[in-house]
Protein backbone atom coordinates (compact mmCIF):
# COMPACT_ATOMS: atom_id res chain seq x y z
CA UNK A 1 0.00 0.00 0.00
CA UNK A 2 1.27 3.51 -0.80
CA UNK A 3 1.54 6.19 1.88
CA UNK A 4 -1.91 7.65 2.43
CA UNK A 5 -2.64 11.44 2.69
CA UNK A 6 -2.01 13.02 6.05
CA UNK A 7 -5.54 13.97 7.04
CA UNK A 8 -8.98 12.78 6.21
CA UNK A 9 -10.13 16.35 5.54
CA UNK A 10 -7.49 16.74 2.81
CA UNK A 11 -8.69 13.51 1.32
CA UNK A 12 -12.29 14.63 1.23
CA UNK A 13 -11.40 17.89 -0.50
CA UNK A 14 -9.05 16.36 -3.06
CA UNK A 15 -11.51 13.75 -4.31
CA UNK A 16 -13.56 16.40 -6.07
CA UNK A 17 -10.61 18.04 -7.85
CA UNK A 18 -10.31 15.50 -10.70
CA UNK A 19 -13.49 13.93 -11.91
CA UNK A 20 -13.23 12.02 -15.18
CA UNK A 21 -15.75 9.22 -14.94
CA UNK A 22 -14.48 5.82 -13.89
CA UNK A 23 -17.68 4.00 -14.85
CA UNK A 24 -20.28 5.16 -17.37
CA UNK A 25 -23.48 3.26 -18.11
CA UNK A 26 -25.35 4.62 -21.09
CA UNK A 27 -28.87 3.34 -21.81
CA UNK A 28 -28.03 -0.25 -20.83
CA UNK A 29 -30.70 -2.90 -21.38
CA UNK A 30 -30.55 -6.52 -20.28
CA UNK A 31 -33.10 -9.35 -20.31
CA UNK A 32 -33.00 -12.83 -18.82
CA UNK A 33 -35.09 -15.54 -20.48
CA UNK A 34 -37.22 -12.92 -22.22
CA UNK A 35 -37.92 -10.93 -19.05
CA UNK A 36 -36.40 -7.42 -18.90
CA UNK A 37 -34.06 -7.04 -15.91
CA UNK A 38 -32.47 -3.68 -16.65
CA UNK A 39 -34.18 -1.05 -18.79
CA UNK A 40 -32.26 1.99 -19.92
CA UNK A 41 -29.75 2.19 -17.06
CA UNK A 42 -27.61 5.32 -17.32
CA UNK A 43 -25.30 6.70 -14.64
CA UNK A 44 -21.76 7.97 -14.13
CA UNK A 45 -19.31 7.24 -11.35
CA UNK A 46 -16.83 10.13 -10.98
CA UNK A 47 -13.25 9.30 -9.96
CA UNK A 48 -12.86 9.02 -6.21
CA UNK A 49 -16.58 8.67 -5.53
CA UNK A 50 -18.38 5.78 -3.88
CA UNK A 51 -21.86 5.14 -5.22
CA UNK A 52 -24.24 3.00 -3.19
CA UNK A 53 -26.78 1.06 -5.25
CA UNK A 54 -30.09 0.14 -3.61
CA UNK A 55 -33.15 -1.75 -4.69
CA UNK A 56 -35.33 -4.63 -3.63
CA UNK A 57 -34.11 -8.20 -4.18
CA UNK A 58 -33.97 -9.11 -7.86
CA UNK A 59 -33.90 -5.49 -9.02
CA UNK A 60 -30.59 -6.03 -10.83
CA UNK A 61 -28.11 -4.45 -8.40
CA UNK A 62 -25.52 -7.24 -8.52
CA UNK A 63 -26.05 -7.52 -12.28
CA UNK A 64 -24.83 -3.92 -12.65
CA UNK A 65 -21.54 -4.90 -10.95
CA UNK A 66 -21.15 -7.97 -13.19
CA UNK A 67 -21.83 -5.79 -16.24
CA UNK A 68 -19.21 -3.26 -15.08
CA UNK A 69 -16.72 -6.09 -14.76
CA UNK A 70 -17.62 -7.51 -18.17
CA UNK A 71 -18.64 -10.86 -16.64
CA UNK A 72 -21.93 -10.59 -18.55
CA UNK A 73 -22.82 -8.59 -21.66
CA UNK A 74 -25.85 -6.30 -21.99
CA UNK A 75 -28.40 -6.67 -24.78
CA UNK A 76 -27.84 -3.05 -25.78
CA UNK A 77 -26.30 0.17 -24.52
CA UNK A 78 -22.76 1.31 -23.80
CA UNK A 79 -20.56 0.66 -20.76
CA UNK A 80 -17.28 2.47 -20.29
CA UNK A 81 -14.93 1.41 -17.49
CA UNK A 82 -11.68 3.29 -16.78
CA UNK A 83 -12.07 5.05 -20.12
CA UNK A 84 -12.47 1.85 -22.15
CA UNK A 85 -15.62 0.72 -23.91
CA UNK A 86 -16.06 -2.83 -22.66
CA UNK A 87 -18.93 -3.83 -24.98
CA UNK A 88 -17.49 -6.05 -27.65
CA UNK A 89 -14.11 -6.14 -25.92
CA UNK A 90 -12.59 -9.64 -26.32
CA UNK A 91 -12.23 -11.71 -23.14
CA UNK A 92 -8.40 -11.57 -23.36
CA UNK A 93 -8.48 -7.76 -23.16
CA UNK A 94 -11.11 -7.87 -20.43
CA UNK A 95 -8.72 -9.94 -18.28
CA UNK A 96 -6.17 -7.11 -18.58
CA UNK A 97 -8.78 -4.49 -17.64
CA UNK A 98 -10.04 -6.55 -14.70
CA UNK A 99 -6.56 -6.49 -13.18
CA UNK A 100 -7.23 -2.77 -12.47
CA UNK A 101 -10.53 -3.55 -10.75
CA UNK A 102 -11.18 -5.17 -7.38
CA UNK A 103 -14.37 -7.04 -6.61
CA UNK A 104 -15.74 -8.21 -3.27
CA UNK A 105 -18.38 -10.86 -3.86
CA UNK A 106 -21.58 -11.32 -1.85
CA UNK A 107 -20.43 -14.55 -0.22
CA UNK A 108 -16.73 -13.60 -0.39
CA UNK A 109 -16.02 -16.23 -3.10
CA UNK A 110 -12.65 -17.10 -1.58
CA UNK A 111 -10.90 -20.10 -3.14
CA UNK A 112 -11.63 -22.74 -0.52
CA UNK A 113 -8.68 -24.98 -1.41
CA UNK A 114 -6.18 -22.13 -0.95
CA UNK A 115 -4.94 -20.55 2.29
CA UNK A 116 -5.64 -16.93 3.18
CA UNK A 117 -2.11 -16.04 1.99
CA UNK A 118 -2.66 -17.74 -1.38
CA UNK A 119 -6.11 -16.16 -1.75
CA UNK A 120 -4.87 -12.65 -1.05
CA UNK A 121 -1.75 -13.12 -3.21
CA UNK A 122 -3.67 -14.80 -6.05
CA UNK A 123 -3.46 -11.83 -8.40
CA UNK A 124 0.26 -11.32 -7.77
CA UNK A 125 1.11 -15.01 -8.08
CA UNK A 126 -0.66 -15.11 -11.45
CA UNK A 127 1.87 -12.66 -12.84
CA UNK A 128 4.96 -14.09 -14.48
CA UNK A 129 8.25 -14.25 -12.58
CA UNK A 130 6.78 -13.49 -9.17
CA UNK A 131 8.00 -15.68 -6.35
CA UNK A 132 6.16 -16.49 -3.13
CA UNK A 133 8.78 -14.49 -1.18
CA UNK A 134 8.09 -11.37 -3.24
CA UNK A 135 4.38 -11.43 -2.48
CA UNK A 136 4.87 -11.85 1.26
CA UNK A 137 5.10 -8.14 2.04
CA UNK A 138 2.10 -6.98 -0.04
CA UNK A 139 0.06 -9.82 1.48
CA UNK A 140 1.03 -8.75 5.00
CA UNK A 141 0.15 -5.13 4.19
CA UNK A 142 -3.22 -6.02 2.67
CA UNK A 143 -4.06 -8.25 5.62
CA UNK A 144 -2.88 -5.58 8.03
CA UNK A 145 -5.29 -3.15 6.33
CA UNK A 146 -8.17 -5.46 7.25
CA UNK A 147 -6.54 -6.33 10.60
CA UNK A 148 -6.20 -10.04 9.90
CA UNK A 149 -2.41 -10.51 9.84
CA UNK A 150 -2.62 -13.61 12.01
CA UNK A 151 -4.76 -15.61 9.59
CA UNK A 152 -2.23 -16.04 6.74
CA UNK A 153 -1.95 -19.81 7.04
CA UNK A 154 -5.60 -20.50 7.72
CA UNK A 155 -8.11 -21.83 5.19
CA UNK A 156 -11.35 -19.93 4.43
CA UNK A 157 -13.40 -22.66 6.12
CA UNK A 158 -11.61 -21.86 9.40
CA UNK A 159 -12.71 -18.19 9.31
CA UNK A 160 -15.95 -16.55 10.43
CA UNK A 161 -18.25 -14.89 7.86
CA UNK A 162 -16.97 -11.42 8.76
CA UNK A 163 -13.32 -12.51 8.56
CA UNK A 164 -13.95 -14.07 5.15
CA UNK A 165 -15.45 -10.80 3.96
CA UNK A 166 -12.37 -8.92 5.23
CA UNK A 167 -10.02 -11.37 3.48
CA UNK A 168 -12.06 -10.79 0.29
CA UNK A 169 -11.46 -7.04 0.71
CA UNK A 170 -7.72 -7.67 1.21
CA UNK A 171 -7.67 -9.80 -1.96
CA UNK A 172 -9.48 -7.04 -3.88
CA UNK A 173 -7.19 -4.20 -2.79
CA UNK A 174 -3.76 -5.91 -2.90
CA UNK A 175 -2.90 -4.48 -6.34
CA UNK A 176 -4.32 -1.04 -5.44
CA UNK A 177 -7.11 -1.14 -8.04
CA UNK A 178 -8.54 2.02 -9.55
CA UNK A 179 -12.08 0.79 -9.07
CA UNK A 180 -13.63 -1.37 -6.36
CA UNK A 181 -16.94 -3.19 -6.65
CA UNK A 182 -18.61 -4.37 -3.45
CA UNK A 183 -21.53 -6.79 -3.74
CA UNK A 184 -23.48 -6.72 -0.45
CA UNK A 185 -20.33 -6.73 1.68
CA UNK A 186 -22.32 -6.64 4.91
CA UNK A 187 -25.06 -9.08 3.89
CA UNK A 188 -25.76 -11.70 6.54
CA UNK A 189 -23.38 -10.19 9.09
CA UNK A 190 -24.11 -9.00 12.61
CA UNK A 191 -24.22 -5.20 13.23
CA UNK A 192 -20.78 -5.04 14.88
CA UNK A 193 -19.06 -6.93 12.05
CA UNK A 194 -21.02 -4.88 9.48
CA UNK A 195 -19.66 -1.68 11.03
CA UNK A 196 -16.11 -3.10 10.79
CA UNK A 197 -16.62 -3.81 7.09
CA UNK A 198 -18.12 -0.36 6.45
CA UNK A 199 -15.19 1.20 8.30
CA UNK A 200 -12.79 -0.61 5.93
CA UNK A 201 -14.72 0.63 2.90
CA UNK A 202 -14.66 4.20 4.25
CA UNK A 203 -10.94 3.80 4.93
CA UNK A 204 -10.37 2.68 1.33
CA UNK A 205 -12.48 5.59 0.05
CA UNK A 206 -10.91 8.33 2.19
CA UNK A 207 -7.33 7.16 2.55
CA UNK A 208 -6.67 5.64 -0.88
CA UNK A 209 -9.39 7.59 -2.75
CA UNK A 210 -10.53 4.51 -4.63
CA UNK A 211 -13.67 4.89 -6.73
CA UNK A 212 -16.25 2.27 -5.89
CA UNK A 213 -19.71 0.90 -6.53
CA UNK A 214 -21.37 -0.58 -3.46
CA UNK A 215 -24.43 -2.79 -3.70
CA UNK A 216 -26.25 -3.12 -0.41
CA UNK A 217 -29.65 -3.83 1.11
CA UNK A 218 -28.71 -1.97 4.28
CA UNK A 219 -29.57 1.70 3.92
CA UNK A 220 -28.01 2.48 7.30
CA UNK A 221 -24.60 1.31 5.99
CA UNK A 222 -24.70 3.88 3.18
CA UNK A 223 -25.86 6.62 5.53
CA UNK A 224 -23.00 5.81 7.90
CA UNK A 225 -20.60 6.10 4.96
CA UNK A 226 -22.12 9.43 3.94
CA UNK A 227 -21.87 10.83 7.46
CA UNK A 228 -18.41 9.60 8.45
CA UNK A 229 -14.82 9.99 7.37
CA UNK A 230 -11.76 7.94 8.22
CA UNK A 231 -9.43 9.54 10.73
CA UNK A 232 -5.87 8.29 10.28
CA UNK A 233 -4.77 9.58 13.66
CA UNK A 234 -7.20 7.44 15.62
CA UNK A 235 -7.31 4.79 12.85
CA UNK A 236 -11.07 4.86 13.24
CA UNK A 237 -14.11 6.15 11.38
CA UNK A 238 -15.35 9.46 12.83
CA UNK A 239 -18.64 11.33 12.32
CA UNK A 240 -18.45 14.41 10.11
CA UNK A 241 -19.40 17.80 11.44
CA UNK A 242 -22.69 19.05 9.85
CA UNK A 243 -20.95 21.58 7.53
CA UNK A 244 -18.64 19.05 5.86
CA UNK A 245 -21.20 16.42 4.91
CA UNK A 246 -21.61 17.56 1.31
CA UNK A 247 -17.85 17.09 0.78
CA UNK A 248 -18.04 13.33 1.25
CA UNK A 249 -17.59 11.66 -2.16
CA UNK A 250 -20.69 9.54 -1.77
CA UNK A 251 -23.60 9.07 -4.16
CA UNK A 252 -26.82 7.06 -4.07
CA UNK A 253 -28.54 5.15 -6.83
CA UNK A 254 -31.95 3.54 -6.34
CA UNK A 255 -33.34 0.93 -8.73
CA UNK A 256 -36.98 -0.01 -9.20
CA UNK A 257 -38.32 -2.47 -11.77
CA UNK A 258 -35.05 -2.37 -13.71
CA UNK A 259 -34.94 1.45 -13.91
CA UNK A 260 -33.03 4.08 -11.98
CA UNK A 261 -35.47 6.18 -10.00
CA UNK A 262 -32.89 8.16 -8.01
CA UNK A 263 -29.30 9.25 -8.64
CA UNK A 264 -27.95 11.88 -6.26
CA UNK A 265 -26.23 12.61 -2.96
CA UNK A 266 -27.40 12.14 0.62
CA UNK A 267 -28.83 15.66 0.80
CA UNK A 268 -30.99 15.15 -2.29
CA UNK A 269 -32.03 11.74 -1.01
CA UNK A 270 -33.13 13.14 2.33
CA UNK A 271 -35.26 15.81 0.62
CA UNK A 272 -36.79 13.72 -2.15
CA UNK A 273 -40.55 13.97 -2.64
CA UNK A 274 -40.85 10.58 -4.39
CA UNK A 275 -43.30 8.52 -2.32
CA UNK A 276 -41.61 5.17 -3.09
CA UNK A 277 -38.16 6.45 -2.11
CA UNK A 278 -39.48 8.10 1.05
CA UNK A 279 -41.09 4.82 2.03
CA UNK A 280 -37.90 2.94 1.13
CA UNK A 281 -35.65 5.12 3.29
CA UNK A 282 -38.04 5.51 6.21
Amino acid at each position, binding site marked *: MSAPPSTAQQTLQSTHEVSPEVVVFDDVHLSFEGKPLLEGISFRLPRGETKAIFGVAGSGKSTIL*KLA*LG*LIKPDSGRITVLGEDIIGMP*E*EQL*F*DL*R*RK*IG*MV*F*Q*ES*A*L*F*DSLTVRENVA*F*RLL*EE*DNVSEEEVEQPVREALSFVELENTVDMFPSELSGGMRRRVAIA*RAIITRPELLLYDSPTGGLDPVTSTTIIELIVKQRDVYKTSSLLVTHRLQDAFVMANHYFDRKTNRMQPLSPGTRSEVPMGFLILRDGKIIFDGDVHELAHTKDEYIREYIS
Partner: protein
Amino acid sequence: MELLSPAEFAKDKLQAVQDYTLLAVQSVANAFRRPRYLADTVYQADLIGFGSLPIVVLTGLSIGAELALNSANTLQRFGSLSLIGQLVSVGMVRELGPIITGLMVAGRNASGMASELGSMLVTEQIDAMRALGTDPMKKLVTPRVVATVFMLFFLTIISDLLGLFGGAVISTFLYQTDWHQYWSTAWQILVFQDVFMGLMKPLLFGFIIATIGCYYGLNARGGTQGVGRATTQAVVASSVLILVVDLLLTKLLMTIFAYQ
Protein backbone atom coordinates in the same frame (compact mmCIF):
# COMPACT_ATOMS: atom_id res chain seq x y z
CA MET B 1 -39.17 -29.93 -14.08
CA GLU B 2 -40.11 -27.58 -16.91
CA LEU B 3 -41.36 -29.24 -20.10
CA LEU B 4 -39.67 -28.10 -23.30
CA SER B 5 -41.06 -28.11 -26.82
CA PRO B 6 -39.17 -30.39 -29.26
CA ALA B 7 -37.72 -27.31 -30.99
CA GLU B 8 -36.45 -25.84 -27.72
CA PHE B 9 -35.09 -29.23 -26.65
CA ALA B 10 -33.21 -29.60 -29.95
CA LYS B 11 -31.91 -26.03 -29.64
CA ASP B 12 -30.68 -26.72 -26.09
CA LYS B 13 -28.87 -29.89 -27.18
CA LEU B 14 -27.31 -28.13 -30.16
CA GLN B 15 -26.17 -25.31 -27.88
CA ALA B 16 -24.65 -27.89 -25.49
CA VAL B 17 -22.73 -29.55 -28.34
CA GLN B 18 -21.48 -26.14 -29.50
CA ASP B 19 -20.40 -25.17 -25.96
CA TYR B 20 -18.63 -28.51 -25.46
CA THR B 21 -16.84 -28.21 -28.81
CA LEU B 22 -15.69 -24.70 -27.93
CA LEU B 23 -14.40 -25.87 -24.53
CA ALA B 24 -12.60 -28.83 -26.11
CA VAL B 25 -10.95 -26.69 -28.80
CA GLN B 26 -9.95 -23.98 -26.31
CA SER B 27 -8.50 -26.52 -23.89
CA VAL B 28 -6.09 -27.67 -26.62
CA ALA B 29 -5.35 -24.19 -27.99
CA ASN B 30 -4.58 -22.88 -24.49
CA ALA B 31 -1.88 -25.52 -24.05
CA PHE B 32 0.18 -23.53 -26.58
CA ARG B 33 -0.57 -20.09 -25.09
CA ARG B 34 0.79 -18.18 -22.12
CA PRO B 35 0.47 -18.32 -19.19
CA ARG B 36 1.23 -22.02 -18.85
CA TYR B 37 0.20 -23.52 -15.54
CA LEU B 38 2.90 -26.14 -15.16
CA ALA B 39 2.55 -26.45 -11.37
CA ASP B 40 -1.23 -26.94 -11.70
CA THR B 41 -0.66 -29.55 -14.43
CA VAL B 42 1.82 -31.49 -12.29
CA TYR B 43 -0.57 -31.31 -9.32
CA GLN B 44 -3.43 -32.65 -11.46
CA ALA B 45 -1.18 -35.36 -12.90
CA ASP B 46 -0.39 -36.49 -9.37
CA LEU B 47 -4.05 -36.41 -8.39
CA ILE B 48 -5.28 -38.19 -11.53
CA GLY B 49 -2.32 -40.50 -12.21
CA PHE B 50 -1.08 -41.65 -8.83
CA GLY B 51 -4.52 -41.27 -7.30
CA SER B 52 -5.99 -43.68 -9.85
CA LEU B 53 -3.13 -46.17 -9.58
CA PRO B 54 -4.74 -48.48 -6.96
CA ILE B 55 -7.97 -49.00 -8.94
CA VAL B 56 -6.05 -49.41 -12.20
CA VAL B 57 -3.76 -52.02 -10.60
CA LEU B 58 -6.71 -53.94 -9.18
CA THR B 59 -8.85 -53.85 -12.31
CA GLY B 60 -5.91 -54.61 -14.63
CA LEU B 61 -4.94 -57.66 -12.59
CA SER B 62 -8.47 -59.00 -12.25
CA ILE B 63 -9.48 -58.40 -15.88
CA GLY B 64 -6.35 -60.21 -17.13
CA ALA B 65 -6.98 -63.08 -14.72
CA GLU B 66 -10.66 -63.32 -15.65
CA LEU B 67 -9.85 -63.25 -19.36
CA ALA B 68 -7.40 -66.13 -18.88
CA LEU B 69 -9.85 -68.05 -16.73
CA ASN B 70 -12.71 -67.76 -19.21
CA SER B 71 -10.71 -68.40 -22.36
CA ALA B 72 -8.69 -71.29 -20.88
CA ASN B 73 -11.81 -73.37 -20.60
CA THR B 74 -12.68 -72.92 -24.28
CA LEU B 75 -9.09 -73.36 -25.47
CA GLN B 76 -8.77 -76.58 -23.46
CA ARG B 77 -11.68 -78.09 -25.40
CA PHE B 78 -9.77 -77.58 -28.64
CA GLY B 79 -6.47 -78.63 -27.11
CA SER B 80 -5.04 -75.17 -27.69
CA LEU B 81 -4.29 -74.11 -24.12
CA SER B 82 -0.83 -72.99 -25.22
CA LEU B 83 -2.48 -70.09 -27.07
CA ILE B 84 -3.70 -68.55 -23.82
CA GLY B 85 -0.81 -66.07 -23.65
CA GLN B 86 -1.57 -64.81 -27.15
CA LEU B 87 -5.25 -64.41 -26.41
CA VAL B 88 -4.74 -62.50 -23.17
CA SER B 89 -2.02 -60.37 -24.74
CA VAL B 90 -4.03 -59.25 -27.78
CA GLY B 91 -7.22 -58.81 -25.75
CA MET B 92 -5.57 -56.72 -23.06
CA VAL B 93 -3.32 -54.56 -25.24
CA ARG B 94 -5.77 -53.84 -28.04
CA GLU B 95 -9.05 -53.55 -26.22
CA LEU B 96 -9.54 -54.37 -22.56
CA GLY B 97 -6.58 -52.49 -21.09
CA PRO B 98 -7.47 -49.11 -22.64
CA ILE B 99 -11.20 -49.40 -22.18
CA ILE B 100 -11.24 -50.69 -18.60
CA THR B 101 -8.63 -48.13 -17.54
CA GLY B 102 -10.57 -45.39 -19.34
CA LEU B 103 -13.83 -46.33 -17.64
CA MET B 104 -12.19 -46.57 -14.21
CA VAL B 105 -10.48 -43.20 -14.59
CA ALA B 106 -13.72 -41.71 -15.94
CA GLY B 107 -15.63 -42.93 -12.90
CA ARG B 108 -13.07 -41.52 -10.53
CA ASN B 109 -11.90 -38.34 -12.23
CA ALA B 110 -14.69 -37.06 -14.51
CA SER B 111 -16.89 -37.05 -11.41
CA GLY B 112 -14.18 -35.35 -9.35
CA MET B 113 -13.64 -32.64 -11.95
CA ALA B 114 -17.37 -32.01 -12.41
CA SER B 115 -18.01 -31.75 -8.67
CA GLU B 116 -14.95 -29.57 -7.98
CA LEU B 117 -15.59 -27.12 -10.81
CA GLY B 118 -19.35 -27.22 -10.20
CA SER B 119 -18.85 -26.30 -6.54
CA MET B 120 -16.51 -23.49 -7.59
CA LEU B 121 -19.13 -22.24 -10.03
CA VAL B 122 -22.05 -22.16 -7.58
CA THR B 123 -19.96 -20.45 -4.90
CA GLU B 124 -18.90 -17.75 -7.42
CA GLN B 125 -15.24 -18.83 -7.30
CA ILE B 126 -15.15 -19.08 -11.10
CA ASP B 127 -16.52 -15.53 -11.38
CA ALA B 128 -14.01 -14.43 -8.75
CA MET B 129 -11.20 -15.94 -10.80
CA ARG B 130 -12.36 -14.08 -13.91
CA ALA B 131 -12.74 -10.91 -11.83
CA LEU B 132 -9.13 -11.30 -10.67
CA GLY B 133 -8.00 -11.34 -14.30
CA THR B 134 -7.37 -15.08 -14.63
CA ASP B 135 -8.88 -17.19 -17.39
CA PRO B 136 -10.53 -20.27 -15.78
CA MET B 137 -10.16 -22.13 -19.06
CA LYS B 138 -6.39 -21.77 -18.91
CA LYS B 139 -6.05 -22.19 -15.15
CA LEU B 140 -8.57 -24.99 -14.53
CA VAL B 141 -9.44 -26.82 -17.76
CA THR B 142 -6.19 -27.07 -19.74
CA PRO B 143 -4.07 -28.48 -16.86
CA ARG B 144 -6.72 -31.15 -16.24
CA VAL B 145 -6.90 -32.10 -19.92
CA VAL B 146 -3.12 -32.28 -20.37
CA ALA B 147 -2.66 -34.22 -17.10
CA THR B 148 -5.43 -36.73 -17.87
CA VAL B 149 -4.22 -37.43 -21.43
CA PHE B 150 -0.63 -37.84 -20.23
CA MET B 151 -1.38 -39.99 -17.18
CA LEU B 152 -4.03 -42.20 -18.79
CA PHE B 153 -1.45 -43.22 -21.41
CA PHE B 154 0.87 -44.57 -18.71
CA LEU B 155 -1.94 -45.98 -16.58
CA THR B 156 -3.04 -48.01 -19.61
CA ILE B 157 0.46 -49.43 -20.05
CA ILE B 158 0.48 -50.43 -16.37
CA SER B 159 -2.98 -51.96 -16.72
CA ASP B 160 -1.89 -53.96 -19.82
CA LEU B 161 1.17 -55.34 -18.03
CA LEU B 162 -0.76 -56.24 -14.90
CA GLY B 163 -3.48 -57.87 -17.01
CA LEU B 164 -0.85 -60.02 -18.68
CA PHE B 165 0.60 -60.84 -15.26
CA GLY B 166 -2.85 -61.80 -13.94
CA GLY B 167 -3.34 -64.05 -16.97
CA ALA B 168 0.08 -65.64 -16.42
CA VAL B 169 -0.70 -66.44 -12.78
CA ILE B 170 -4.02 -68.10 -13.68
CA SER B 171 -2.67 -70.09 -16.63
CA THR B 172 0.44 -71.21 -14.73
CA PHE B 173 -1.06 -72.12 -11.36
CA LEU B 174 -4.55 -73.27 -12.39
CA TYR B 175 -3.89 -74.77 -15.81
CA GLN B 176 -0.23 -75.77 -15.38
CA THR B 177 0.97 -74.06 -18.58
CA ASP B 178 4.60 -73.04 -18.80
CA TRP B 179 5.35 -69.59 -17.40
CA HIS B 180 8.07 -68.81 -20.00
CA GLN B 181 5.99 -70.12 -22.87
CA TYR B 182 3.10 -67.87 -21.77
CA TRP B 183 5.28 -64.76 -21.81
CA SER B 184 7.11 -65.56 -25.03
CA THR B 185 3.87 -66.26 -26.97
CA ALA B 186 2.22 -63.20 -25.42
CA TRP B 187 5.15 -61.07 -26.58
CA GLN B 188 5.52 -62.64 -30.05
CA ILE B 189 1.88 -62.27 -31.08
CA LEU B 190 1.93 -58.50 -30.64
CA VAL B 191 2.61 -56.47 -33.78
CA PHE B 192 3.08 -52.71 -34.17
CA GLN B 193 -0.57 -52.21 -35.14
CA ASP B 194 -1.80 -53.81 -31.89
CA VAL B 195 0.40 -51.66 -29.73
CA PHE B 196 -0.41 -48.52 -31.74
CA MET B 197 -4.13 -49.19 -31.44
CA GLY B 198 -3.84 -49.87 -27.73
CA LEU B 199 -1.85 -46.73 -27.02
CA MET B 200 -3.83 -44.44 -29.32
CA LYS B 201 -7.04 -45.03 -27.42
CA PRO B 202 -5.99 -43.70 -23.99
CA LEU B 203 -5.00 -40.40 -25.59
CA LEU B 204 -8.52 -39.91 -26.88
CA PHE B 205 -10.17 -41.36 -23.77
CA GLY B 206 -8.16 -39.04 -21.52
CA PHE B 207 -9.26 -36.07 -23.59
CA ILE B 208 -12.91 -37.18 -23.37
CA ILE B 209 -12.77 -37.74 -19.59
CA ALA B 210 -11.24 -34.33 -18.80
CA THR B 211 -13.25 -32.23 -21.24
CA ILE B 212 -16.56 -33.87 -20.31
CA GLY B 213 -15.82 -33.56 -16.58
CA CYS B 214 -14.88 -29.89 -16.94
CA TYR B 215 -17.80 -29.15 -19.26
CA TYR B 216 -20.41 -30.51 -16.85
CA GLY B 217 -18.71 -28.82 -13.89
CA LEU B 218 -18.59 -25.43 -15.57
CA ASN B 219 -22.22 -25.74 -16.64
CA ALA B 220 -23.68 -26.92 -13.32
CA ARG B 221 -26.92 -25.12 -12.48
CA GLY B 222 -29.09 -25.19 -9.38
CA GLY B 223 -26.85 -25.18 -6.30
CA THR B 224 -25.61 -28.32 -4.60
CA GLN B 225 -28.32 -30.44 -6.25
CA GLY B 226 -27.11 -29.17 -9.62
CA VAL B 227 -23.53 -30.11 -8.73
CA GLY B 228 -24.67 -33.64 -7.87
CA ARG B 229 -26.53 -33.86 -11.17
CA ALA B 230 -23.51 -32.57 -13.10
CA THR B 231 -21.30 -35.18 -11.43
CA THR B 232 -23.58 -38.05 -12.43
CA GLN B 233 -23.99 -36.71 -15.96
CA ALA B 234 -20.22 -36.36 -16.35
CA VAL B 235 -19.62 -40.03 -15.46
CA VAL B 236 -22.46 -41.30 -17.65
CA ALA B 237 -21.57 -39.10 -20.64
CA SER B 238 -17.84 -39.80 -20.50
CA SER B 239 -18.38 -43.58 -20.11
CA VAL B 240 -20.83 -43.75 -23.01
CA LEU B 241 -18.61 -41.56 -25.18
CA ILE B 242 -15.58 -43.75 -24.40
CA LEU B 243 -17.49 -46.86 -25.52
CA VAL B 244 -18.78 -45.22 -28.70
CA VAL B 245 -15.41 -43.69 -29.61
CA ASP B 246 -13.71 -47.01 -28.88
CA LEU B 247 -15.99 -48.81 -31.33
CA LEU B 248 -15.49 -46.21 -34.06
CA LEU B 249 -11.76 -45.92 -33.49
CA THR B 250 -11.27 -49.68 -33.48
CA LYS B 251 -13.13 -50.00 -36.78
CA LEU B 252 -11.21 -47.07 -38.28
CA LEU B 253 -7.80 -48.38 -37.24
CA MET B 254 -8.64 -51.90 -38.35
CA THR B 255 -9.54 -50.51 -41.76
CA ILE B 256 -6.36 -48.42 -41.91
CA PHE B 257 -4.16 -51.34 -40.87
CA ALA B 258 -6.11 -53.76 -43.09
CA TYR B 259 -6.84 -56.27 -40.30
CA GLN B 260 -8.32 -59.54 -41.53
